[in-house]
Structure formats: C-alpha cells, structure tokens
C-alpha cells in the first residue's frame, strides 16, 4: 500500500513557539478615519461590534489564478482582532456566485480559521512560516495563508509599502494565536452586546431568536427528550449543578431511576474526569444507549461495572442485560484521525492537481480517511444491531468518553431515530452528544494553537459519516450537504458557544471572568451568553438559510405519493416508502459473510468446497444476518437506516474536500443541477399547498400572512430556488457548479503552477508502457 507523502505534510505542522505577550487592548491606533488616502478612501474595513483594526496595508494584490496576475484584485489588506480582511473595489472575475455571510466579507478569513501563515520574498528566495511574536528578517513580497477550511489565499505586496506589509504579516501571525481563551474574538463580540443599548442587549441575551433547538442546559429539555423517547425508567439528575461533581459534565443529565443521587456522587470519583454514565437515547423497545468514561481504579472496576449495569438493566422493561462497547479498542484514536486528515488535505489541495491524478485513488486510500469513516459507520451499525436486533441496552465506553463516543452515539441515534434526521433534531443531537457531553471543541479545533497533539477533526469526521448516510438515503434527511459544510465552516468563526469551549463549565467560567474583568453588566444572566451556531440568522439571511433545506425530504408530516395516492408520512414501522419498492427477484440473493472459500474464477482447479452450505451458517454472524435481512426489505426512510458499508459504496465528500479546487469544478454541472430542479418542483408544490389550505380554511382568511392577493413572503418559502412559473422547466442557472454555493475563485492559489488548469489536464494524459501493449497493438 502506498502511503501519502508524509514529509510534504511538514508545511502544516511546523509550529512556532508560544506567544509571550497577551492583550489586544488598548487597540493599536491605525484607525482608518485618521489616515484618509484620496485614491482609495472608500476602502474601509467592515467591523463587527468589538472588532478593531490592528494593522493594514494598501496596494495589495490578491492572487486569483495560479499562473497569471491578470485577474488579480487590488485593494487593502487589514488585520483585525477577528479576521484577515481584504477590501477591494474590483469585482471577482469568473465568479458567478458566492454564498455571503453576515459576519464575513467575500475575501475575509477569520483568524481562527488560519492554519499557517507563510511569508515569501521572491528576490531573496526566502520563505518563512510565521508564528506569534516572531521576527521577520526580510520584507515579504508575498503572504500565503493556509486555512483550516482548506482554502489557500495569496496576497502580493509588489506595490505595497514594505514596512506596512511586514507589519500586517506579523500582526496576522500573532493574532491568530491567542494566548488565552478570553482573547478569542467571541468574548469582545458578545461582551459588546451587553454594553450597548437595551435594544442590542436583547440580542445578546436572547436564546437565539425563537430558536427551536433545545440546548439541553436545563432540566425541562432533558425531560422532554425522556418523554419523546418513552424512557420512563430514566430521570433527570442535577447533582452536577454548579459543576459540583464533574467539571466536564453538563449540569443536568439523565440517569437510571434506580441509581440514587447519593450513589452517583459516590461513584463519580472512580470515573475518569468524574464522568458518571450519561443516558443518550432510548429505543422504543426499551433498550437504552448510555455513554460512560472508563473506571480509573482497577480495583473498583468490577464492582462499579456491576452496579452501573444493574441500574441500566433495571431500567430496561425486559430487564435485559446491558452490553458494553469499548470504543478505544476498536476505533482509531484521535492522533490517527488527525493524521488521516492531514494526509487527505495534502492530497486534495496542497499537491499539484495533475501530479496527484495518477495515484489519486491509492493516495486517498493511503490517507485512511475513508477507512476511518467506514470504521465509525460500521461500529455504529453494530451498536444499532444490539439495540434494535438484540433489544439490549448498550454502554459506549471510552477513556474520557468525550471523543469517539460523541461520534458513535450520534451516528447510532441518527440511524435509529428519524427525529434526528430533521434539521432541528440534528441540531439537538449535536447539542446533546457533543456540546453538552463535553467534546473538547477548543482543544480539538486547536483554537489557541497551543497544542497540536490535541488537534483532531473529529466533528468533521462525524459530518462526513452523516454525509455518507445522506448520500445513500438522500430523501431521509431534512438538511443538505451545504448545511453540513457550512456547519463545519462555522467551527472557525469563534463567536458561537457551540464550538468555542471544551465543556459547559469552561464556557460558564470564562464568560463570568471576562464579564467581571471588563465590568460588563450581565443583568439576570450568570455569564455571557454566546449565540449558539444554531441561531443561523447570525450568519445568514433567511433566504440564504433556505439552502439548508432539502427538497427531497420525506419527513414527519411531509407529503408523499404512494401508489398514486397522496399520503402524509407518520412515524411508523410499517410505513414503507414507495421509493425502494420492487427489487428484481433475481437479485434477492442472500449473502454470505466470508467467501474466501470460493476459488477465483481463473484458477485452473475448479473445485468446490463440499461443505458450503454449512459454512454459510458458520460464517454469518448474527449482526450480519440482521443487516442482510434489513437490506432485503425496502428501506423505510422514517425508520431504521443502515449504511451500505462496502468500500465501493463510500465516497469522498467532494463538496467539502474539493470545493476550492478550480480544476475539479464542473461548470454548470454536478449534483446541484438536479437539486435545483427538485427545488423548483418542491417550491411549486408548497405554493399549491398554500393555495389549497386557503381554500380549505374557507373564504378570506383574516390573518395578514394569508391576505389574499399578496404573494407569500419569500421568507415563508422553504426552497432556495423558487419556481418562476409553473410548467416551465428552466435549465440550470449559469452560476451553478459542482462547488456551489462555494467558489474556488481566489480561494485556492497554490504557488508555482504553470499552465492553465484546462491545458494542464488535457496534456496530462499519462503513458504507461508495457511490452504487452506494444505486442498487442491491433493492426
């Protein structure tokens, strides 16, 4: 097996020393208003509340294409305490569409998204990776910013003042490595909201503008989840109020009714991080999914195991024994995953496009990313079998229970419970199994760039697993792959409570401290309230948020046609979707677990093992039989979903990994073009539904929303692409590409590639010679 080139990964892993000074305040006075420059006077940074300009330089060129400078944009490069901003009046060439964020401009990169800063001096042939608080002995002619979201952005300083250019580079390198969590921009940003007028303050205190996603930071939300899943033998436990027991557990969590608070308190000290078992979810058959840290003291292990298992068993209606699944032993660890990710990034965006073509497949395999995706999906499917097939409760055990457990537990619930495949359900799942369960987002994202060994894209791995499921069952999910991509990008915008902290306690502590040190009036709040990422209006307009909605979704309440009759889907085991009906009978073969017993076709010895039928019984494990039985039936999109795990059926998530690669863009093509047509149809149907409702609701409706004669507000419509006129099948718009809604233009500028992408790949046809080739050429 060919492994990816490790040495070439070094670019990313070189990390400078720790920064030595700490403070963004007082702001360095390079205020724009004081230095008006006549020619470019309108080039002003758009700043958010709490955002300040640190340094800036004029007459900078942003590189657009790798090989020529003709499309480059002229403008000003600014470093603030939040982002690297490039302001220009020039319009981007070639670009027909880009998703716009409310927090970031077209060319902006949040500092938290910076992976590495490289400065170059062409004349001297020098290149340096810049870290915080470092010196630079040459004047840079070029700045290359490698981003965590796979972008590579390049700026040239040929016409810029050399000193200011150097200063900006140093500032960027310094400010993207905050020395303290409270220097993350979110604190200033959220703090400012409390300091502002009362109107602003509402914004800050609000739980997110009518947000429907439960945050699981209060007992009532856990109670509701217990009721929803029918987990009658489980209760909300508040022994960790004020984080009295465990710093990394949430204040409220769910435990078996039979375990008393007193016992739990007593057990807690034996668990890693005092993390007593947490309930995740209940199957309708009564089996429960539980997550648990390992027991530190081996002497206590058996006793504790027994007590915990007893408690869980008592909460099972059939008193079935709980099964334990040790994740540390079966799944890759965080270093493995990080390594795979770094190799994959290398292959996808760093290596020159054409050179990596020939070995593309084996390189992807060598990165092991897909292998890990498959491992997590497979393990989760096994857990599903235990819960559904064996009707047993399952305990997921991991050392701390804050990493691999998050992935497995969320995937299991996603496969078993259609609620989590709705948008709100999915968000509540991430909130419950990641944010509240104490996934170390701050460490895993490496927001402080302090400890590279802790960095791990576990959440992205989870999103990739979700994407694989979505790719296999596109109509089962309410949200789109654009949603998953935008969600993962939001990790690098350090203002959301979701991805900023290692656990709720850290969130509470830092924001309390920050408020105190800045004398921020918190009012009734105990701490600063960061907006959760689920408050999407922070980032996008309602219209843009419509890109999250899948037109295919067959959800609860969504209508669907079954055998010609319009039906409304309800959650029910018997309700098969007509989608997968009618498998050809010739294909209803069973499957056999291990088939090595069959000799290859080409072997000369055509002998069969006599005992094949017995072998079948032996080779097929119960879980395999369970999967086989499931696959032989039509899939119920509102019921259990199992992933197809053959390696041939797992794909690279192209939108995420290749969206910035210009050569990989399919102009006016890709899955989005079919999605576009689907959206138009779904929108038309929604409009018809509204009209039908108006009829059914009787004559002139009193509510203003349905005032006759007015067209519905675009905000009310679920689809991003709107039907213009019925029965008019428009062709896909010009701006649709396989990268939509993202655009590679100016977002991936590798250095030193000659030739235009098209000519590159056209002439890149490789020749491999073999003697056979020459001999066999037809004449």
């Amino acid at each position, binding site marked *: 097996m060919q492994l990816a080139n490790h040495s070439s990964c070094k670019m990313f892993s070189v990390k400078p020393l720790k920064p030595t000074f700490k403070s963004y305040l007082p702001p360095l006075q390079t205020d724009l208003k004081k230095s008006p420059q006549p020619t470019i006077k309108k080039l002003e940074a758009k700043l958010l509340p709490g955002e300040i300009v640190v340094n800036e330089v004029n007459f900078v060129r942003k590189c657009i294409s790798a090989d020529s400078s003709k499309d480059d944009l002229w403008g000003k490069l600014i470093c603030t305490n939040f982002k690297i901003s490039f302001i220009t009046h020039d319009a981007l060439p070639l670009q027909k569409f880009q998703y716009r964020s409310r927090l970031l401009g077209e060319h902006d990169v949040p500092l938290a998204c910076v992976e590495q800063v490289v400065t170059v001096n062409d004349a001297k042939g020098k290149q340096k990776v810049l870290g915080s608080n470092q010196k630079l002995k040459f004047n840079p002619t070029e700045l290359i910013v490698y981003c965590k979201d796979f972008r590579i952005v390049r700026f040239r300083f040929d016409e810029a003042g050399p000193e200011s250019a150097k200063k900006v580079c140093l500032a960027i390198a310094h400010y993207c490595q905050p020395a303290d969590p409270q220097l993350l921009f979110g604190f200033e940003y959220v703090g400012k909201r409390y300091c502002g007028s009362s109107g602003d303050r509402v914004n800050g205190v609000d739980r997110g503008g009518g947000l429907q996603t439960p945050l699981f930071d209060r007992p009532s939300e856990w109670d509701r989840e217990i009721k929803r899943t029918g987990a009658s033998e489980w209760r909300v436990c508040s022994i960790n109020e004020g984080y009295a027991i465990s710093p990394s557990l949430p204040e409220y969590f769910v435990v078996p009714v039979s375990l008393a608070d007193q016992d739990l308190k007593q057990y807690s000290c034996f668990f890693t991080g005092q993390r007593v078992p947490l309930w995740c979810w209940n199957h309708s058959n009564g089996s429960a999914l539980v997550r648990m840290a390992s027991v530190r003291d081996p002497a206590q292990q058996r006793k504790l195991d027994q007590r915990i298992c007893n408690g869980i068993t008592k909460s099972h209606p059939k008193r079935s024994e709980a099964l334990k699944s040790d994740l540390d032993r079966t799944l890759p660890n965080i270093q493995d995953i990080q390594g795979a990710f770094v190799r994959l990034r290398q292959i996808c965006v760093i290596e020159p496009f054409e050179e990596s073509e020939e070995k593309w497949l084996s390189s992807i395999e060598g990165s092991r990313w897909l292998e890990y995706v498959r491992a997590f999906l497979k393990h989760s499917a096994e857990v599903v079998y235990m819960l559904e097939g064996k009707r047993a409760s399952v305990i997921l055990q991991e050392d701390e229970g804050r990493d691999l457990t998050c992935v497995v537990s969320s995937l299991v619930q996603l496969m078993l419970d259609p609620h989590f495949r709705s948008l709100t359900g999915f968000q509540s799942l991430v909130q419950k199994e990641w944010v509240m369960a104490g996934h170390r987002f701050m460490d895993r994202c490496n927001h402080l760039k302090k400890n590279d060994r802790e960095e791990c894209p576990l959440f992205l791995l989870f999103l990739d697993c979700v994407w694989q499921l979505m790719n296999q069952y596109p109509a089962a999910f309410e949200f789109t792959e654009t949603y998953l991509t935008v969600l993962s990008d939001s990790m690098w915008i350090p203002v959301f409570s979701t991805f900023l902290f290692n656990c709720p306690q850290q969130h509470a502590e830092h924001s309390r401290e920050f408020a105190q040190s800045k004398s921020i009036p918190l009012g009734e709040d105990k701490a600063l309230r960061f907006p959760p990422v689920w408050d999407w209006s922070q980032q996008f307009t309602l219209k843009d948020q419509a890109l999250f909605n899948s037109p295919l979704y067959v959800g609860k309440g969504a209508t669907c046609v079954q055998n010609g009759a319009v039906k409304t889907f309800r959650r029910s085991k018997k309700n098969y979707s007509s989608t997968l009906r009618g498998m050809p009978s010739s294909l209803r073969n069973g499957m056999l677990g291990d088939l090595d017993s069959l000799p290859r076709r080409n072997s000369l010895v055509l002998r*069969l093992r006599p005992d094949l039928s017995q072998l079948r019984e032996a080779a097929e494990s119960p879980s395999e039989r369970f999967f086989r039985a499931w696959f032989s039936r039509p899939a119920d999109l509102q019921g259990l979903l199992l992933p197809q795990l053959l390696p041939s059926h797992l794909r690279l998530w192209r939108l995420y990994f290749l969206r910035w690669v210009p050569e990989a863009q399919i102009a006016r093509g890709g899955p989005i073009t079919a999605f576009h047509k689907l959206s138009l149809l779904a929108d038309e149907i929604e409009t018809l539904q509204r009209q039908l409702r108006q009829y059914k609701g009787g004559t002139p409706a009193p509510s203003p929303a349905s005032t006759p004669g007015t067209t519905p507000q675009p905000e009310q419509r679920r689809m991003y692409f709107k039907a213009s006129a019925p029965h008019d099948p428009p062709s896909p718009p010009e701006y649709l590409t396989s990268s939509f809604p993202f655009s590679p233009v100016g977002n991936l500028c590798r250095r030193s590639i000659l030739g235009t992408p098209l000519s590159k790949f056209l002439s890149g046809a490789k020749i491999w010679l073999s003697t056979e080739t020459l001999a066999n050429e037809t004449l």
Partner: protein
Amino acid sequence: MIERVLEQEEVITQVLAADNKINRHLVPTWHIDVLKSVDKALSPLLEFTDALSVQNTKKIRNRRLNRCFRASRESLKMEPLADVPLLPGEERVIDKDIIYMCPFSGALKGKVFITNYRLFFKSADMDPAVTLNVPLGAINRVEKMGGASSRGENSYGLDITCKDVRNLRFALKQEGHSRRDIFEILFRYAFPLSHGLPLFAFLSQEKFEENGWNSYSPMQEFRRQGLPNDKWRITFLNQSYELCDTYPTILMVPYKATEEDLRKVATFRSRCRIPVLSWIHPDNLAAITRCSQPLVGMSGKRNKDDERYLDIIRETNGTTSKLTIFDARPNVNAVANKATGGGYEGDDAYQNAELVFLDIHNIHVMRESLKKLKDIVYPNVEESHWLSSLESTHWLEHIKLVLSGAIQVADKISSGNSVVVHCSDGWDRTAQLTSLAMLMLDSYYRTLRGFQVLLEKEWISFGHKFASRIGHGDKNHADADRSPIFVQFIDCVWQMTKQFPTAFEFNEHLLVTVLDHLYSCRYGTFLYNCESVRDANEVRTKTISLWSLINSDQTSYINPFYAAESSRVLYPVASMRHLELWVTYYIRWNPRIRQQQQSPVEQRYKELLALRDQYLKKLEELQLSDSTPHLANSTAPSSASPTQRVTHLHTPF
C-alpha cells in the same frame, strides 16, 4: 425398445445439427415438426413406462428416457417458466433439478430451465426464492468442473462465465452422468453460431408498436446537420460496398474531392477506411472526420492523394489553419504499427496538419483491465484495499484518457478547427472519440432518440466489430478479438450523465438496458461486424431492433431531471477526482447492495411530480366548484384566483 429410443435421440440430434448447417432459416418449424413426430411415436411408450414405474421397475425408469419425452413434449407448449413468461419465439429445451452454488447464499437446491433464449433458475426452499435469469447470449464460457469420481457433495457440476461481470456455478448429482445433457444443451444454445444454429434474434416473434429499424436514416441525419452543403457532398461510391466493405453505403465527403480521389485515398488507408465526415458544427462549420491509419509502413511511404485530400478537408471551413489529426493511440503504438504497414501522418508529408496522440490503449489492454475489475468486484468487493485495487485495474484511468481525448476533439471543433480522428482501423477508439465528442457538442445526441442515432451512426454503421468484440453465439471465449470497447464507451457516457444530471434525456436504466442487450442476442441491433454483413444476413427484415423495445415504452428510460439546452457544449471533468466506478452496473449482482430500479432521487422527483399534478387537479376542482359561491363573496379582496397567483410568483433569483 428403450435402447432404440435412445439411439433415435442421438440420431435426431445429429440430423438436427446437420440440417441446421444447411438450412438455417427453416430450423424453427422443422425442429418442431421433428419433435412432434418423435412425441407422437413415443407417446404410447410413455404410457407404458408410466405403468411400469408404478411397479417400481428400476431398469425402465431411465432418467434420460424420461427427459427425452419431457423435452420433446414441453418444447411444443409455450408454458411460462416458474415466474417469467416466455418471449414469443422462445422455447423450452430442458428442465433439471440442480444446485446453484450461490456465492452469497451458499448451495441452493432448485430447478434450472433452459430455453433457446435463457437460463432460468429458481431455488426450491429459500423464501423469498433466489432466481437467476440469464440470457444465453450473456454466457461467455461453459465448463465442466469436477469429475464423476470427485469427492464431496457439490463437486460435480458446471461453471459458467458470463460476459456481464458474473460467474455461475451449478452442482449436479454425480450418478448417471446427470450433467452430460445439460452441458451439451447449454453449450449448443449458448453458442448457436458454433453449432450451426441461428441466434435467438432470428427466432424471436416479439411485436412492438414502433419499428426501431426506422430510428436512424443516414440521409435524415445529414439533413439535420445541414448537409450536404457547398463544401460537403454525399457519395454513393460505396453503395454496394465496393470502396470499403466495413463502411456504410452513404458517405459524406468534401465537395472538391472526386470519386477518383476517393478511390486513390482508399488505397492508402488501412482497410480502405477513408476520412469521411461524422459531424459538422452548425455555426463555424468545423468538421469531425474519421478514418483508419495511413499505410505508411517501414519505408515511410507517402501518398499525394491522401495528403491533398486531408488538405481539402482542412479547407472546407475557412477558419482551420491547421487540420488537427487526433491519433487515438499512444505514440509508441503508432510507431510500432509501421512494422505491419500502418503508421501515422508524418510532419513532412502533411504540412498543414498537426498530429496529436491521445494515448488510449488498445483492445487487449482494455480487455485485461475489465477482467481485473471483475476480479475485485465479483463475487465479493475487495474489502481491505479497495481503492488501490481499483486503481491497479486502470479501468478508470482508461476512462479518463478516452474522455479527455474526446474533450480535446470537442474543444478543437468549438474553436472552429476541423479534425481528423483515427486509431489503427478506425472502428474502436475512433468510434469512442467521435461519438463522445459529438455527445459533448450536439445536444441532439443527448436525447433518447438522438442517442440511438449516435449509436447507429458512429458505432453500428461505421463497422465497430460487435460480432468480434462481443463474440455473439461463438464458443471461442479466448478469441483475442474480444474486447469491452463498447462497454467502456457506455461507461464514459454514464460518467457524463453523473456530472451533468440534467443534460441527458435518458437515464441510467437505458444505458444498462443497452449493455444487457449488447450481449443478449434478442435484438438484431448489435449483431455482426458491419453493414455489408448485416445486409447479407437480412438483419433488418429478420430480426427486431432494440430501439423497437425502447421506443415502444419510453417512460422508464427518461431522465426526469432533463432540461433541454440546445446549444450547450458539455465539458465533463476528466479527472480521477470525479470519475467513479459505475457500481450500479459492475456490482449489481451483489445482494449486499440494495438493488434499486431507479435512483432514489429520480424516484422522489417522480413522486413529487405526481403530487404536483394531484394538487393542481384538486385546485382546479375547487376553483370550479367554488366559482359560484365565491362570486357572491367577491366583495372581499380575494379576487385573485390561485392560478393567477401562481403566475405571479416570479421571484427571480
């Protein structure tokens, strides 16, 4: 007496075989007559044996004898098989209890039915039953495995290799040479041409609303392209295949080239396959022309007529300063071909031309590549090193080279440069390149009917050697002429449909159906190597066209996402980043994969379409029933009717 019947059986078989060789077209009726008379002669005997069997007389319960009766009787009736109705013209030949060695479910007891068209198996005790339905045309090779003395329960049987990426194994009872008859029958009917029997396409009595043979008319297609014009003319020089026996009868050649010129050029092109027009750009008049390699040879021969002819082609459109000659082969292969009299257009000889090698490998490389692919997907998908195994088959890499070659052709044409495309003989890689480039350039070929025209024109009429490449009805499975060139082309088309889901009027189901009937021998469409042989065998009058099937029920082949865009050139991304293995074709036999007739997205779209129509209908009904009472209420500002409102909903993006 029993001995005599058995003897008779052998004689009849011999007579049948001998007669088939002489009088192929009379076989069906004659066959039936013989069997009828045999049946008649034997029927008293049948009663006799039945009576004897009651008495348990072992000697007379000879299984061969019984089978002889059964075969002769049942072939007269048109009984349906276990589940599947027989096709008109399809006849049962033999039934047998057998064990299917399913690679997924293990050994399955059941019954196999063999007809003159297919092998059908149904398991006896599985629920749901496992069935196999294999057209005999898809069989590549039938072998016996194990001997009567082999040990083990299931070690005596048949091994069948199929052309459609699967293998089948059957086990039989060891006693009584139970395998001999089924092997012989299978061997005979799977390879009818090797046994002097007709292909099933000549026996089929299927009837369709539309006659698919009319789906392509060369004249009509040329007219669609605006031809002939003042630069291009039709020549009937090949009317009776005297210019080139592997070309179609009607050819489009430069106006300025005389018939004499064409004859002279033919002497310098391999197998007389001269450059002729395949497609012309409607606006810039750049033309795709196709041919075979020039006969340059070791001595580097030149031919003034050929050189002048290519220059005439260049001049047909004013904007081509240099005619681009795309040689599909790798450079070294082109050089190697000189040794056998072939070669390529040298710089000195063809001054106004540029030669580009496209590095596409030959039929043997492609055959080996697909063989390797089969090894990693059937019966099991290689689990541990899937991607590197896939890479080592080079299948996708070959796809990439073919596609990027076609992109280069299309790119030249759209920028107004005429091109000549050839490989060695101009019937494999050349057909791939011209047809794919045409698919990129001309949206007509992306419609269901246009695609048929494309296949009929560039592949069938221009002599892609389907008979040699596929080996229809021929037992010689190791023939070096066999190669999956057409499969590879369809795979390229599939890759394009994946990259442009709205650009094609047809769907994946059409592509799979085309490939299934590439092998099945049920339709005449893909039979024989070229038009002249097809004419000699009267294919158009004696067989049915695949397009009859397709066009008589188009709905299942229509891509619901299709959005017609007339003037758009499609440039797929020929990169490993986007090319993927066509799992729904190559891995479709694996039961671990949920088999879907349609992609779930396609299916959902159709559901939504039905839903919309239902809502529209309901709304209409409501409006109708509402119109009177609503008029009374119309003082309220609800006057805008819902339908009107729909048209108002113009929200430009």
